[in-house]
């Protein structure tokens, strides 16, 4: 009897863990990402005391060859309306421009603030760029366990930066649904302590199921109690965005 039980346990364990952490993350990374994206982002910043502040921005982004361009323009609140940021990444170099309507001038910014906050939210620039997939080769991935919740099966993977890789976090724990492989929850740890928690409450499919994109995200800073709810609206995927959008003239418009 005891032998049988051992065998059953071994078999079920090997079945459950038939996939490795590396494999899970490769499947996550295998999702294609759109070549262009245009839409509106509504950010609700919620303080620990429950005070809310809403910011609305318009985003245009495009990937062509080795070049990535992104333009962000504030729509609300009224006092920052028209404030625009243009980022152009080419051959590993990044150029940032800023337009403040009150100054009526476009300024070039030398910013190396990868860890900095994205538009003053709880998301960092790193977090935002990792949304379309983190550089999985920079991390070691270990499958911690599988979990079942609401009838859905999840792989729980711990990703730690490889030696020499600079990362904002000391580790991340990622919940990956076994069916979609689009992470629904990520815990970010800093110096071994839980720092932020990302939840993807809604994942929509675009281009007839070609893309799976989180459209309602929440990032909570566990240490300060502050959180940001990010909603992506009116998304247009893989549409042609002309070069004139990523220009100083368009920024000022």
């Amino acid at each position, binding site marked *: 009897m005891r032998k049988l039980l051992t065998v059953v346990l071994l078999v079920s364990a090997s079945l459950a863990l038939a996939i490795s952490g590396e494999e899970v993350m490769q499947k996550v990374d295998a999702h294609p990402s759109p070549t262009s994206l245009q839409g509106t982002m509504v950010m609700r910043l919620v303080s620990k005391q429950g005070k809310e502040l809403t910011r609305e921005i318009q985003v245009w982004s495009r990937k062509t060859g080795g070049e990535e361009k992104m333009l962000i323009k504030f729509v609300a609140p009224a006092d920052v309306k028209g*404030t625009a940021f243009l980022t152009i990444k080419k051959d590993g170099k990044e150029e940032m421009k800023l337009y*403040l309507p009150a100054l009526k001038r476009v300024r070039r910014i030398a910013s190396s603030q990868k860890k900095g906050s994205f538009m003053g939210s709880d998301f960092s620039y790193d977090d935002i760029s990792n949304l379309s997939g983190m550089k999985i080769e920079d991390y070691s991935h270990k499958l911690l366990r599988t979990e079942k919740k609401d009838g859905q099966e999840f792989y729980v993977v711990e990703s730690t930066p490889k030696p020499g890789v600079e990362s904002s976090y000391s580790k991340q724990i990622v919940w990956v649904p076994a069916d979609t492989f689009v992470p629904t929850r990520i815990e970010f740890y800093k110096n071994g302590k839980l720092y932020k928690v990302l939840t993807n409450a809604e994942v929509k499919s675009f281009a007839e199921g070609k893309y799976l994109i989180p459209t309602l995200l929440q990032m909570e800073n566990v240490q300060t109690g502050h959180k940001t709810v990010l909603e992506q609206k009116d998304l247009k995927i893989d549409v042609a965005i002309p070069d004139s959008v990523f220009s100083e003239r368009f920024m000022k418009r």
Partner: protein
Amino acid sequence: MQLLSQTAVRHPWRVILAFLIISLGFGLGLKGLELDNSPESLVPPDLPAKLLLDQARQTFGGGDMEFAALEGDVWTPQALADLRKATVAVGQIEGVKRVTSLANAKRMEEDNGFLVVEDLLPDSLSPAEIPQIRAYVDKHPLYSGRLASKDGRYAAVIIEVDSKSDMKKLNHQIEAALTASWRGPVHLAGTPALSGYILDTMARDIPRQLLLALLIIALVFFVNFRSQRGVLLPLLTVLVSLVWALGLGGWLGFKLGMVSSILPVVVLAVGSSFTLHVLNRFYHELAAGAQRREAVLLAVRETGLGVLVSALAAGAGLAALYTSSVPQIKSFGLLAAFGVLSAFLASSLLIPAVLALLKDPRLVMDPERPDAVSRAMRSLGAWLPRARWGILLAALLFLGVMFYFIPRIQAETSFLSYFPKTAPPRMATELVDRVFGGSDNVILVVDGDLKDPELLGAIYRFEQKVAAYPQVGSAASIADVVRELHKALTGAYGLPDTRDGVAQELLLYQMSGDPEELAQFMDEGATTAQITVQVRSLPSREMQNLVARIQKDADAIIGPKADSVRATGTTVLMLETMRLILHDQYVSLALAFVLVALFNALLLRSWVVGLVSIVPLLLTVSGQFGLMGMFGVPLDTATALIGAIAIGVGDYSVHIIVRYLEELRKGRAAVAAARESLYVSGRAVFFTALAIGGGFMALLLSGFAPIQTFAKLMGFTVGATALFALTALPAALLVFVRGKERKEVVNDA
């Protein structure tokens, strides 16, 4: 009393067992007793400035400010790397809410046509980069002289800690983290550092003081009784009362602060005196030929009234402190009163029970044999009746002089004043005051539209004004951040002209780093901001003037542009507490006098006697405060207690009254009654004063200046109460209580 003594003598084992069980119950509470001397333990929780500070901490994060000065040549790659290591290490300590140093400062400037917003210190530094960084820091208003001293000899690490943390542990951790990373000396200043040091000192002082007080009291008792049980029994009483009082504190979740560290000695000194009276009488009766059991019964019955009255009076005087709004003083009052009543129970139940079981003492000596003390009392008794009017006149004159000086008393709540000048945190604080312009701060919470350039301009003008005061180091707020950013964007210092301009520059700043960085100056909605004014550590009076001036400037300059501007901060809280201490002092003293007079009047069945009984106390207490006013001794959290404690320990004069009334009852004339009461009770009063006064002298060992001052004042108090009890009291009795009040006082009680 009769019931108590009979129970004790009939069922000694049951009484002892009951005491053992109760003591065990309270003793278990001892584990829960904690030390805490944070400003929180001193500040009433509902103080408006406290509520404002709590709210500011919620909104802007941060906490009590600890200031570390790291000594050494700051401008080398090695030192800056060490500083970064130290900053990271401290930031990881539990209870540290924010760390600010050059290592996490920002560089924001125009560089080759680019707006640069980045960390001031790059990840790796070469010696060639340092002059440029130093030049930037030197002209930056928020960094120069604040994060690095102008001469480059000190780097600052400003550590904000959760005010609810265990400061002792936290302080050790911070010190360890800093010294592990930094190669030179590390100086720690600020309230958390002082609190940590206070707790260390308390943990060291309390057992030492207790032991020394025990030794002194034991010695006095030995001189009085010349027997082992004469020493051990009073000590048994105080042991019981200490366990009960401290155990109750543990069960109730009280924390002992600097003030309550004197609790054990107070209970010890007051508690032991009760047993002294019982034993005195016991030996007296034995010497008069009574059997042991009979002697116990007589001793408790005869001294019982005096002990009861003085226990109730002491309890009332101490319990009156419960009206204080200062949490630490409140809990001290309650526990001390409970301790005194426990000592009363022990001396009138437990001690008789033990005496009933013990064999007859081998050497039955008469403690009232005419030794030097008794002879002195006899001469006093002979002289006093003739001089009674003169004595009363002198007492009145004394009162007048003391009342003249009482209003000159000044209160002091600065933590720094607790320490001798050579204590490390005091020296560190003085260093930080000198090098960095202040280790303390005053916070102004501004409510209004912070995107309004006019309000920001007003805040900036206010900062310029207060920063020019010699007691102020610097001031920092969102206005400085916007000015820096505006300069980086436009090349000129100033503020944007429009509200939108401010909003957009703030947005840029928020995007360029951690949103937390802005959160320390302003809330996200830009409706409330805090201005941090860095100030030197000052004596309370000067600090009060400075805070008043800062608030006045804020009202005049910022007020018209804002919804409100209010001052708070740890220092402001301590100042508010000081005002309360002064106010409470009068309330609790008045209450204590009324209670003591009331008890004495009720128990001795005469209003006149009740009033006369407080004569020595009135003289002593006005003497204490008069002397403090005369010699400039400040009223602080420790010395604020002396009035109430004087009433607690000083009521042994009641024994003289009881004896005097007893003699009148026996039909003696007033003069003869006064002589007899001085001769019989005078000796006990003398030795009680010696024991209590000696016990308090143990507090001279304390590492805190206020406690040492307290000990000296208690020395005066105990001496003065004894002196007044032996002179002014009998004189007043002779004048006001001449026999009409002859009542069956003793037996009725």
